[in-house]
């Protein structure tokens, strides 16, 4: 009855199964970066936000498009950056303990405290 919807539902369900298969193999050690990576992937909603800017033709439409674009961009940029920052810390061996501490993991980098505002 609704062929387009039917195709969409098929894609959705199959992607769900692929997701279950792939993600169940991620070790517990990486669960936080995994969730953060998943977070950045749902930043694809930025594509949706861009497309509604096309059909926006009144003030309310522009406001919605602006907020949606801001939300989605924060999501996608922040998600990828923070995931990369976390994954950089996971190493098999500390590289020459005490001598060279990479800047991103130096104990003192906590000085710039920042809450989760966005």
């Amino acid at each position: 009855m609704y062929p387009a919807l039917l195709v969409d539902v098929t894609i959705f369900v199959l992607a769900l199964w692929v997701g279950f298969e792939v993600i169940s193999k991620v070790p517990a050690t990486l669960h936080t970066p995994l969730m953060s990576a998943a977070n950045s992937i749902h930043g694809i909603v930025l594509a949706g936000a861009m497309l509604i800017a096309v059909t926006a033709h009144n003030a309310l439409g522009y406001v919605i498009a602006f907020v949606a674009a801001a939300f989605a961009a924060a999501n996608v940029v922040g998600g990828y950056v923070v995931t990369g920052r976390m994954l950089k810390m996971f190493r098999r061996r500390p590289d020459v303990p005490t001598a060279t501490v990479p800047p991103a993991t130096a104990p003192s980098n906590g000085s710039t405290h920042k809450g989760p505002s966005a």
Partner: protein
Amino acid sequence: MSTFEWVIQLVYVLAASCFVLGLHMMNNPATARRGNQVSTAGMGTAIAATLAIVIHDGGITATGWAVMIAGAAVGGALGLYSARTVQMTAMPQLVSMFNAVGGGAAALVGVHDYMSAGSTVSASTSVTTLLDVIIGAVTFSGSIIAAGKLQGVINSAPVTFPGARLVNLLLAAVAIGLGAYLIAAPNAALLSIVIVAALVFGVSMVMPIGGADMPVVISLLNAFTGTAVAMAGFVIGNWALIIAGALVGASGGILTKLMADAMNRSIRNIIVGGFGTGDAAAAVVAGPGGSVRSIAADDAAIQLAYASKVIIVPGYGLAAAQAQHEVAALADVLESRGIDVSYAIHPVAGRMPGHMNVLLAEANVPYPQLKEMDDVNPEFARTDVALVIGANDVTNPAARRPGTAISGMPILDVDQAKSIIVIKRSMGHGYAGIDNELYVDPKTSMYFADAKRALSEMTAAVKTLVGT
């Protein structure tokens, strides 16, 4: 279908493949970083394709361009700033905020589509639009409350009032009932009532959930966001959104299940009531009596320095005291004496799935030393000293007996080690509100201090003892 549309669809398929491949590469810490880069490349490709659509369509006004670019610039800058500066202990709040904005953006896509379509919209589109708006709005407000609780801005204890459950049911009924009505008779004004009901429902859903349940809540809201984004994909007919949303929904779903299992609680149980508010807490079986033995830094140092195998059991107390660098320093000293040191990490040790691993990785602990519960439990019997730092309920042997608030919860078998040292500020209870039988075990010594100070003192004592 034009050549342009063909190319765009194929590019979206490429982007979706990058997402799947990126997630696949996260199955090993060695390839995970590359996986994130693959996923980022996929995202860049998808955004570029979408930009091509916007240009090709030509319908966008100058204001539309300005709004889109300004919004993306403001949001991108905020996202970049918070991602660069956030402390690892505050990661759950940040992830929760990303859930909020993702869900919010998805809801707005639905709202815009609903309003611009007017009464010409077909029933099938309406269903997905309303699902998108409702799920997105619930995720938005719920995630903000969760982030507030994690940050300590909002009371992290379960906040509840008489009739709260009834109010929740009522809100859900309004959102879904009115939503169903709107499918039959599109009405932009009534949609705002649906949005408000969904937003309030998000707040009232998360408020009664206690701090210890946060790993489950964040995972669940993550799944919600994914679903909302997939629904937004249905609304605007974009497969990239549908596939990405489904992947995130699957990820959030799996993590929710894992976290709930690790606490031996059903998801329904967590959503409906806070910890210790049920009847189980009243039925606490009195644990075996016994006295608590405390220990000085010197004695703890002797035990640690002459052990051959030490397992460190970090809990949220370690993160709260920001002592991950101190514990890594102690482990370094012990390792330099040839002692086998590893970390036993319970799935709910932090405030989100895998949080403790990130904190220890930040302190330069190599990931092969971080062991999951099922792998490490058989090792406790061969362990000379188990050093428990700020972990409580997940080490309580009472979980093995029926009739306690934590019965059936999988625990770390710390009590099987030859000797146990517990660093704790006081004899206070964990979230379950019951005595920990481990503390009165004759093999256990208690070291009453803040985790950071205790670990520095122990490290100094070990160094003095072995003369380094």
